[in-house]
């Protein structure tokens, strides 16, 4: 199946279907993915998924309804199904009331980005991984293959995104249950580059063999590696949305209403260039936005719906109103000096299972996991047993933020709920003068 051709043909068909004051938008998402799980350094589960979904929204004046449909990729089968959906939506619309906040973008625009169609051999990658993992307790997940996203409207909008990639996320486990996590992702598999990644993880694994440090709950100096910071920033990401801010659902509401500030070191952007997400949403082309500037609130993410509801100006955000390619600016801390600057405290490689313990106060809780070490005088002393933190973003990225590393690290999405994710985040590491552990 040629996805671009398939999408274009569906679009052409729909253009011929609409009548009178009807309009439509069509979102397209397809992937051909190999999924391979590893446990104990060998293949545990293997498969292949080919899927195509479209979401058709039909509009008549101020009324609209949407339908998501799995397609086969075979046009002769898909067109009749699409027609059935049009008929169904057409039947529902007259029974609905007008939507006062409907402001569908009726502008014509075009955005196309298609990477080279690289053929990736997932079985060969898996064989290399098994060979390289000999003697290691490697657990991991490899996702490989092309992804396609499209968006078009009856008013002339057309967006297309195609990329072929792989993402291998893996953990190496020590016999004592401690683990180090790493990953290798990209467009072209390089066996030597993977071997280097694996070797770095193997080196960290050696530290995990030392007797674990038992920490008591309390406040500690800490360094959050970019992957750890990602867990915290991700939790607050949707707080930039106009609806969340207006409806009491944003953890950043005190920042945006002037009741709280972050450290002047904190600047965050929603970017287009350098991110991995499509340059468009269902609202049209995305815009670069300064979300936080030197600790102070910047722009919020505003969909056309929120713009209508709250009297704002839409800025290309999708209906979910969350950043798709967030970048946090780096600081002055050289990554090679992190342990030295930390001195004595916690090096936290990853955090996980974050959630809010008090949302309006941006107070977050979660767990350490993977490669978290106790450091003394700039030297790693011991791994740390799993600990729970509970602290406010306004503290640890406020007065407690001492420094950020110079170069933000690009963190690729490994999520596969429903489909492989395409958003990304670029974050530095953060040195904190105190971070509160509770259990």
């Amino acid at each position, binding site marked *: 199946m040629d996805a671009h051709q398939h999408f274009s043909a569906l679009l052409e068909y729909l253009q011929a279907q609409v009548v009178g004051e009807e309009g439509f938008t069509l979102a397209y998402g397809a992937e051909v993915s190999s999924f391979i799980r590893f446990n104990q350094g060998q293949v545990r589960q293997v498969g292949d998924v080919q899927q195509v979904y479209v979401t058709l929204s039909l509009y008549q004046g101020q009324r609209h309804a949407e339908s998501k449909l799995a397609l086969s990729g075979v046009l002769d089968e898909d067109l009749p199904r699409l027609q059935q959906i049009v008929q169904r939506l057409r039947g529902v619309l007259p029974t*609905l009331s007008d939507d006062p906040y409907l402001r569908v973008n009726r502008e014509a625009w075009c955005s196309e980005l298609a990477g080279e169609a690289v053929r990736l051999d997932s079985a060969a990658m898996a064989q290399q991984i098994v060979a390289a993992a000999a003697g290691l307790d490697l657990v991991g997940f490899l996702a490989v293959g092309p992804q396609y996203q499209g968006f078009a409207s009856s008013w002339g909008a057309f967006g297309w995104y195609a990329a072929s990639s792989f993402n291998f996320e893996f953990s190496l486990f020590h016999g004592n249950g401690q683990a180090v996590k790493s990953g290798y992702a990209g467009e072209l598999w390089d066996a030597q580059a993977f071997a280097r990644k694996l070797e770095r993880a193997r080196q960290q694994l050696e530290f995990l063999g030392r007797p674990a440090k038992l920490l008591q709950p309390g406040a500690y100096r800490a360094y959050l590696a970019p992957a750890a910071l990602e867990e915290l920033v991700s939790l607050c990401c949707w707080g930039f949305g106009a609806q969340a801010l207006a409806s009491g659902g944003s953890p950043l509401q005190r920042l945006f209403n002037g009741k709280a500030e972050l450290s002047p070191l904190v600047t965050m952007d929603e970017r287009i260039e350098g991110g991995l997400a499509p340059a468009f949403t269902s609202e049209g082309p995305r815009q670069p936005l300064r979300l936080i500037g030197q600790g102070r609130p910047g722009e919020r993410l505003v969909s056309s719906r929120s713009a209508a509801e709250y009297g704002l100006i839409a800025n290309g955000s999708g209906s979910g109103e969350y950043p798709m390619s967030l970048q946090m600016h780096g600081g002055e801390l050289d990554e090679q000096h992190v342990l030295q600057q930390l001195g004595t405290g916690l090096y936290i490689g990853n955090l996980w299972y974050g959630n809010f*313990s008090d949302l309006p106060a941006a107070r977050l809780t979660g767990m350490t996991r993977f490669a978290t070490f106790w450091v003394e005088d700039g030297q790693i002393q011991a791994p740390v047993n799993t600990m729970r933190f509970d602290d406010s973003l306004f503290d640890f990225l406020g007065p407690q933020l001492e420094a950020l590393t110079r170069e933000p690290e690009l963190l690729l999405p490994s999520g596969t709920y429903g489909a492989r994710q395409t958003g990304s985040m670029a974050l530095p590491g953060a040195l904190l003068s105190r971070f509160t552990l509770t259990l």
Partner: protein
Amino acid sequence: MFALSDTLKRRFAGLKSTADFWSLRHVQESRESYWVRRRVAQAPSFVDDAGAMLTVRIAGVEAYAATSDLSQAGLQAALERAEQMARALVGHNLLDLASLSYPTEQNDDVMPGYEQPLAGAAHWFELLMAESALIPQDARLVDSHVGLTFTCHEQIYLNSAGACLRRAQRYVFPQVGVTASDEHDSQSRSFGGTHLARQGGAEVLQQLGVIGSAERIADEALQLLLAPNTPNGSRDLLLMPDQMILQIHESIGHPLELDRILGDERNFAGTSFIRQEDFGQYPYGSPLLNVTFDPGVPGELASYRHDDDGTPAQREYLIRDGILQRPLGGALSQWRSGLPGVANSRACSWNRPPIDRMANLNLEPGDKTQAELIGGIERGILMSNNRSWSIDDARNKFQFGCEWGQLIENGELKGVVKNPNYRGISSRFWRNLRAVGDVSTFEVMGTPYCGKGEPNQVIRVGHASPACVFADIDVFGGAA
């Protein structure tokens, strides 16, 4: 119902394979969602999803290929992709599945309410708008939603040994929620969060008591906004069923999933503090703790007769009188571990493979009325309806937050407190179980959002529980 059944059987019979064993699992799911937010009807949303997973076993290696192309050629192509993958990985596989048995049964499982006709969009919007109108006009009530989702699910499993298992289910998910906010704080109250969900038809709305609840929900949101913070310290904790189900889910369900214990999930969802040798002897909780895997509770979200690998499902005790009995592991995990398990190998859809999931996991009722539970507490707190959950990768150290808290002093309910949180360690917490509510406190709930697996899967799980009292728990409020 099962409209594609004959076609699929014919196409399955026409598949050509040299594999030792092959199967087809077809899933067709349709969903309709209606939502009213701040008294404005949102665009209705419909989903029609269908596809099939072909699985083969060759020289002990199992591989799957999933496709939404259900033509003969599409199914054959998927089967061949699976075969190719299996052959390529012979010698690199962790498990040699050559001796793993497979089902041969033929059975139809049509759950109650499936065939009941449902009204159209206009009817549901009228109902939701009327409910929404019960929410008072108050500037502090900044957000509200009332929603309904109906999901119809059909599955057909066929294999080369002659099995044919068909299942049809309908799920109903109602939601009511209100947020109250002022310059400094915001507090939300909902009717069961996302936990009020059952199989069945429109009667589920009456069973759950959703209709007419919005005014009370709004009032409680305002009460929370005005309430003092939950005090910090050690107290007896009375958990209502809408929080108990989260407690059961996170600190019993996930730790007992056998694929975690076998290490499959260590890279993502995590492992478990339970080891294989603990079954049959580990004191999981106080003698009052009885937990079952029960696929037969009418209306509960994960009631079914066979799991997605075709294993017949039956009620089993996982924990009896406080002692750990058996894990939540399907046929494959049982074969790997040699432990007895349950029929809980499940997939969220056609494009994800079955893995161990907790399905219906219930805490059995005890002998105390709610009045007796409260009356037995000298200094405690009642918490209701989960709003925050976090637990470590071994499912041991947890911290949960609830929407609603009420202090208990000298056997009586006192004032409302906001931001009620508590934390503990699973392996100790359940041993502090001091009293278990009777059937009058027992509620059947569940969640459509249990995440696990690589590739990731969100699946529906059922939970039922009475109210329960735990002694000496670390509780605390918010930062505000």
